[in-house]
């Protein structure tokens, strides 16, 4: 399988010039995140991604995780050593409090490190991703005794964490959750079956800390009656040593379309009376606690969309540069040329490149805002950043994963017939990408969250504010002497007008509750395109000013490509915003027009 080379130059550009790494480093507690330190950390993480994780990607796909006769899960060859590399290196603790054994570096830096790990090996990187998410939930909601017992080893990664939400009858609708927890002395006895538990069992560590949603005996029905419990695979003694096995059994592993290396477990809790667990946070407030983990996970899955797209793009670009086939249109002279010179191959590659850079800008912007929302000294700044994170989370999750899939598909297309053949590796990215629009809330759930919680709830205030900022940038670039910037500015300004129309329609489409729901996924895609264009336009503006300021020759090709890439997106992708606006405003009513009888008539 072709190598993955972490795009460090691009990552540095985004960190330094687009999302304000220096401002994040200036937040209280992040004094160590100096530019040279960031370089050292990124380049070492890049080495691990490139040399340890990436070569295991294909092995994991081929071997998959397997359930042994004694109901334990074995990961693919080399995965255990790779996990040790991460743990011994202290990488799992990168963003966490030094008092809990972490390094206390910004979320933004952790995001950049995780991008590389997800690109290198998405099925593997799910494990550190979920473990960090579990740490976040425990940190925020567990009491001190639970924290003391579990957190240090979860921060170090000696134990991993899982998120146990889904049950056979409770997927996107958690109100249907049936797992039960009954008080029993100082703890609870948890019973029930959970499905789709990522890294629900494995042989990477000697303990796994499950965070489990279950109902207390007196719980009210619906989502307001769900509590969160910590249920370790192996009980932990008072002195920290491991005790007896808890009643948590891996009943089976799913056979999946992709991410074969990641064990997706069916877990049975309490087969002989009840698995021992402890309440995390308040009774019946479990969903709130789980959302601490879920929101973290949603931005991380959004990152998977970008990461898999980057991997697919690198592979397609390399193939297109080497593969000789046909004489490209417009080429004179003898000989044959690589397919990268065919305009349609270039269209595919440019579409991949432009959207990847757009996604990276968007996700790193959100990651920086998470740091500001947590750590800024000024409460107004914190609130503003938190609002941006809230608004961008469903857009990022929905748009970046849908786009990641399209790009992985385009990657196969660039390879032609060889892309459909597994040995090139292009197909694996396509299969692996397919889950990203489903888990941690499907695109529909994201679109629903965007429409109801992020737009309708505040009467459109937050989204209008963001669109106003984008429009201002569009106007500024529209006056630029540079043609690429000017065209980008025009297209951005137009797209904001269409976006505004779509939002205003949504705010007034209150007559039929089905209308906003029918429009929601289109609106999400529309805002994904507009915010993606916004990021590319920002990158183009800063690259142009760096060039004008005399950036070295070494960066000339890299920087001068930015405005041209922004123009490509502005002229090839932003026109879709008008079409989406039309579909939303005039087409939403057509979605549910057929009666059941009509739908099933043929």
């Amino acid at each position, binding site marked *: 399988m072709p190598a993955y080379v972490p795009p460090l130059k691009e990552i540095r550009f985004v960190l330094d010039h687009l999302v304000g790494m220096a401002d994040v480093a200036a937040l209280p507690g992040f004094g160590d995140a*100096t530019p040279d330190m960031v370089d050292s950390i990124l380049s*070492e993480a890049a080495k691990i991604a490139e040399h340890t994780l990436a070569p295991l990607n294909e092995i994991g796909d081929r071997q998959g995780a397997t359930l042994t006769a004694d109901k334990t899960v074995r990961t693919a060859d080399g995965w255990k050593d790779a996990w040790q590399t991460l743990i011994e290196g*202290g990488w799992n603790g990168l963003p966490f409090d030094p008092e809990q054994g972490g390094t206390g570096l910004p979320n933004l830096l952790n995001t950049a490190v995780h991008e590389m790990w997800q690109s290198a090996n998405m099925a593997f990187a799910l494990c550190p991703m979920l473990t960090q998410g579990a740490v976040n939930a425990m940190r925020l909601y567990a009491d001190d005794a639970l924290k003391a017992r579990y957190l240090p080893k979860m921060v170090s990664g000696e134990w991993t964490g899982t998120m146990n939400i889904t049950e056979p009858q409770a997927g996107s609708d958690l109100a249907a959750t049936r797992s039960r927890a009954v008080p029993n002395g100082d703890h609870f006895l948890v019973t029930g079956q959970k499905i789709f538990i990522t890294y629900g069992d494995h042989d990477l560590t000697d303990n796994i800390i499950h965070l489990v949603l279950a109902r207390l005996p007196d719980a009210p029905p619906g989502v307001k009656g769900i509590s969160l419990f910590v249920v370790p695979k192996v009980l932990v003694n008072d002195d920290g040593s491991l005790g007896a096995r808890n009643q948590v059994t891996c009943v089976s592993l799913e056979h999946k379309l992709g991410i074969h290396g990641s064990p997706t477990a069916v877990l049975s809790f309490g087969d002989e009376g009840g698995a021992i667990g402890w309440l995390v946070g308040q009774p019946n407030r479990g969903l709130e606690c789980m959302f601490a983990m879920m929101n973290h996970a949603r931005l991380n899955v959004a990152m998977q969309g970008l990461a898999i797209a980057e991997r697919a793009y690198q592979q397609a670009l390399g193939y297109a540069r080497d593969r000789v086939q046909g004489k490209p249109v417009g080429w004179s002279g003898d000989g044959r040329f690589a397919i990268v010179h065919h305009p349609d191959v270039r269209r595919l590659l440019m579409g991949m490149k432009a959207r990847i850079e757009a996604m990276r800008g968007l996700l790193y912007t959100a990651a920086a805002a998470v740091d500001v929302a947590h750590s800024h000294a000024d409460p107004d700044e914190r609130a503003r950043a938190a609002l941006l994170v809230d608004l961008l989370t469903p857009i990022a999750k929905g748009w970046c994963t849908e786009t990641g899939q399209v790009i992985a598909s385009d990657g196969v297309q660039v390879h032609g017939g060889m892309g459909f053949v597994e040995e090139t590796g292009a197909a694996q990215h396509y299969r692996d990408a397919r889950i990203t629009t489903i888990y941690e809330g499907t695109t529909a759930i994201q679109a629903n969250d965007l429409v109801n919680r992020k737009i309708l709830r505040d009467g459109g205030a937050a989204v209008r504010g963001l669109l106003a900022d984008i429009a201002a940038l569009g106007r500024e670039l529209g006056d630029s002497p540079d043609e690429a910037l000017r065209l980008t500015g025009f297209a951005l300004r137009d797209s904001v007008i269409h976006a505004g129309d779509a939002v205003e329609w949504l705010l007034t489409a209150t007559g039929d509750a089905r209308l906003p729901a029918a429009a929601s996924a289109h609106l999400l895609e529309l805002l994904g395109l507009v915010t993606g264009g916004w990021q590319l336009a920002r990158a183009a503006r800063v690259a142009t000013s760096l060039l004008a300021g005399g950036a070295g020759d070494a960066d000339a090709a890299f920087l001068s490509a930015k405005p041209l890439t922004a123009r490509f997106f502005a002229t090839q992708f932003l026109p879709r915003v008008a079409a989406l606006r039309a579909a939303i405003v005039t087409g939403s009513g057509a979605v549910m027009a057929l009666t059941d009888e009509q739908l099933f008539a043929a």
Partner: protein
Amino acid sequence: MKILCAVKRVVDYNVKIRVKTDRTGVETANVKFSMNPFDEIAVEEAVRLKEAGVATEIVVVTVGPATAQDTLRTALAMGADRAILVQTDTETQPLGVAKALKAIVAQEAPGLVILGKQAIDDDCNQTGQMLAALLGWGQGTFASRIAAADGGLTVTREVDGGMETLALPLPAIVTADLRLNEPRYATLPNIMKAKKKPLATVTPDALGVDLTPRLTTLSVSEPPGRSGGVKLPDVATLVAKLKNEAKVIP
């Protein structure tokens, strides 16, 4: 015992090298640089000798541009204690580097100098040997195993006929071969600590060393492309070809 490790910043081994259109060298703009892999093995060995209690201090040195500080920081993160940059923007060649290292050895008085057997950019495989000659010290080149013994070292070398084991009195020069060890990744805490470790910069002038290149590159070109294979009718033709064309059997 103090160990001096010499490292070089080179184009990363994963980069697909492209020759400049004017054939004066290879493209270095927009390419990734990292520590010469053989030097990384040398640093790893020094760290292991320190962990084993054989060495007490590791000083890492490089001769190159200001950007070579990154390479030194990498070595510090792997476990070296302090670093010296002999800063120059001129092209570095083995004799000049060996002279600079000799001057650093005079200042630092190490018991052992470990460096990679060659750098993967120019593949000279000369610096260690030249340094040994300039210092008049013993040398163990192409080391695949190093062990402390009787106040000196035994060094196992990979030679054409197999393995050769030498006893080296100290001080000595050792050059690292590929199989000496597998370098570790720097841990996050050690990367953080590396920043606080001392890194000194000196000029060649201050060392009294003249780094002016003595060799001139006339032209750099891509290796010739592979010509296609041929199908042979029988073994006799193969033997004849091996004898007369390839001349690999007499």
